[in-house]
């Protein structure tokens, strides 16, 4: 063992209680960091999986990202042409040649596609109206592009194929309306059609926005109610390899001109919230580790003040400044390492305990909280803790190294 390390350990052992408090401070920070960030990462992964599983990976809509170029601009490419006050024609909405697009997509390897017609709908029950987003689907094809059927808790998605007046809605919406499986609800659309639909399925994805405001009906029924026969305004795509979402979206958009949004774009707001959430959680838990550094600063500053004579004598008998710095840095590292080890244990215990707690709001009552424990999280917690510990030790260590041994020896005599 080197001399600085020997002296460092002796110093820490001479102030056991203060050392223990500092170690506990670091351990608390590391433990909370591991448990809280693990819980957050687990929630985000669960939420992301739910979103991705129950929704298409790429959605082609009948929109375009850029308006069609004006004939004047096409006539003089590269020229300074400005066209103002354009009165666009009212285009026929819907994806033209949807059947061809679907066939082409289905021919691609690892790609499944299904047609849908999305539109607004008003559900009416017990004198109250509920505005919802209605999605017309071919149940057989839709089941190849989403896992929605897994989330259907009552009835089935396939029933849409056998009952033309059927609809499948979210549990939150059903409870809000006081409706149950088999009940009939009145429906009105902007096209002026009014009819009644029977509830043939109730799903619960766990994503509030979907469970509260989405209703699935058969594609033919939706086309009829919206007054848009044979029209498809969305094509849902599922990929065998989810990492290809941006690539496939770009290919589709480039080939057919319609806006093709990968799931990253569709749920960008949620992903942005995750980023913000990460900043807040990592910031707050990381700051606990930094605060733990103050405990280390406190103990080492105290040792430096108390051991001024020892430092002076060591300097006078030939200990270089570097060894003095190393002594006190070693104290910081020792406290940091002990704190990290204890914090890892505490974090693991805390995370394991949380994994036994029931997940609030989960559709499955046996489902427990998901806590994601990764080597990266443990490493990051240790890294921040050690940086904090070394930084906290550095300041008093520098002060100790600058001690003029003569001033202390003179003062003592």
């Amino acid at each position, binding site marked *: 063992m080197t*001399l600085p390390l*020997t*002296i460092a350990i*002796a*110093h820490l*052992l*001479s102030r056991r209680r203060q050392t223990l408090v500092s170690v506990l401070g670091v351990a608390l920070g590391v433990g909370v960091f591991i448990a809280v960030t693990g819980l957050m990462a687990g929630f985000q992964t669960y939420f992301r999986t739910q979103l991705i599983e129950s929704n298409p990976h790429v959605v082609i809509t009948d929109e375009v990202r850029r308006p069609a170029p004006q004939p004047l601009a096409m006539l003089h490419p590269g020229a300074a042409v400005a066209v103002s006050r354009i009165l666009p024609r009212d285009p026929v909405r819907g994806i033209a040649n949807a059947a061809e697009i679907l066939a082409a997509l289905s021919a691609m390897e690892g790609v499944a596609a299904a047609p849908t017609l999305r539109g607004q709908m008003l559900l009416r029950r017990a004198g109250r109206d509920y505005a919802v987003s209605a999605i017309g689907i071919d149940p057989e094809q839709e089941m190849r592009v989403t896992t929605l059927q897994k989330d259907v808790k009552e009835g089935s998605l396939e029933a849409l194929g056998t009952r033309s007046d059927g609809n499948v809605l979210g549990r939150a919406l059903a409870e809000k309306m006081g409706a149950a499986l088999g009940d009939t609800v009145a429906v009105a659309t902007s096209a002026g059609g009014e009819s009644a639909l029977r509830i043939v399925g109730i799903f619960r994805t766990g994503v509030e926005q979907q469970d509260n405001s989405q209703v699935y009906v058969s594609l033919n029924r939706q086309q009829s109610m919206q007054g848009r026969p044979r029209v498809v305004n969305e094509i849902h795509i599922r990929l065998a390899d989810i990492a290809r979402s941006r690539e496939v979206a770009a290919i589709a958009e480039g080939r057919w001109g319609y806006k093709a949004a990968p799931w990253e774009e569709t749920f960008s707001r949620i992903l942005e919230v995750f980023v913000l959430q990460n900043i807040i959680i990592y910031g707050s838990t990381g700051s606990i580790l930094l605060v733990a550094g103050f405990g280390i600063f406190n103990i080492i500053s105290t040792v430096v003040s108390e051991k001024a*004579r*020892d430092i*002076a*004598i*060591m*300097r*006078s*008998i*030939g*200990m*270089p*400044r570097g*060894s003095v710095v190393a002594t006190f840095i070693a104290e910081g590292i020792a406290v940091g390492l002990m704190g990290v080890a204890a914090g890892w244990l505490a974090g693991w215990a805390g995370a394991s305990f949380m994994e036994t707690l029931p997940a609030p709001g989960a559709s499955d009552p046996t489902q427990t909280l998901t806590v994601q424990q990764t080597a990266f999280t443990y490493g990051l917690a240790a890294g921040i803790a050690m940086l904090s510990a070394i930084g906290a030790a550095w300041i008093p260590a520098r002060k100790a190294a600058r001690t003029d*041994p*003569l001033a202390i*020896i*003179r003062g*003592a*005599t």
Partner: protein
Amino acid sequence: MNDVLRTEALGRVLPGAVPVTLVDGISVAFEPASFTVVTGPSGSGKSSLLYLLGLLDLPTSGEVFLDGQPTSGLDDAARTRMRLAAFGFVFQFHFLLPEFTVLDNVMLPMRQLGQLSRPAMRARAMALLEQLDMADQANKRPDGLSGGQRQRTAVARALANDPPLVLADEPTGALDTKNAAAVFAILVDLAQQGRTVIAVTHDEGLAQTARRRIHLVDGRVVRDEAQG
């Protein structure tokens, strides 16, 4: 010309609104295997001279030569290395590290120098403690020792790296008469064994035991006498 330590017009002035002269143009030389006592009234510059000789302080004028080599141009690291290898220091207060045993305290300079194996360090430290009649106290901590024992431990620590020079600053100042005489006798022995020992003391009685006495007043040598 084979002086192990020598000064030329050595001066040390403390800067300030009113500068204070601690050492004023002292030129002295110390032969190997000699025992020199520096005496003088309080504030005469005895300790300041010793700190300059031991490279603990830098002169404001003049030069300290160690084995004929000037030292004032050396940086802190080089001076620290020289202190570790060439000097043994004994101060008025023992300055032992309280967390370490007597044996560990004696081994500290050896561990810093790092030239011996751990068993060799232990053997040498035990030999020194035996020489100073402290072997039976080797595993005690300083707070379990008497004042004389602590100072003898400090002497053993000063000799740990077998330095050619031993500098002692009022080594008996905190001891009773019996222990003071014993520690002084040890210093005399060290000189007889071949070391150059320079001790600062205000005890005229003990000073009489040295072959050479340098008397300072106001930072100057007023008397430098050797007795046969």
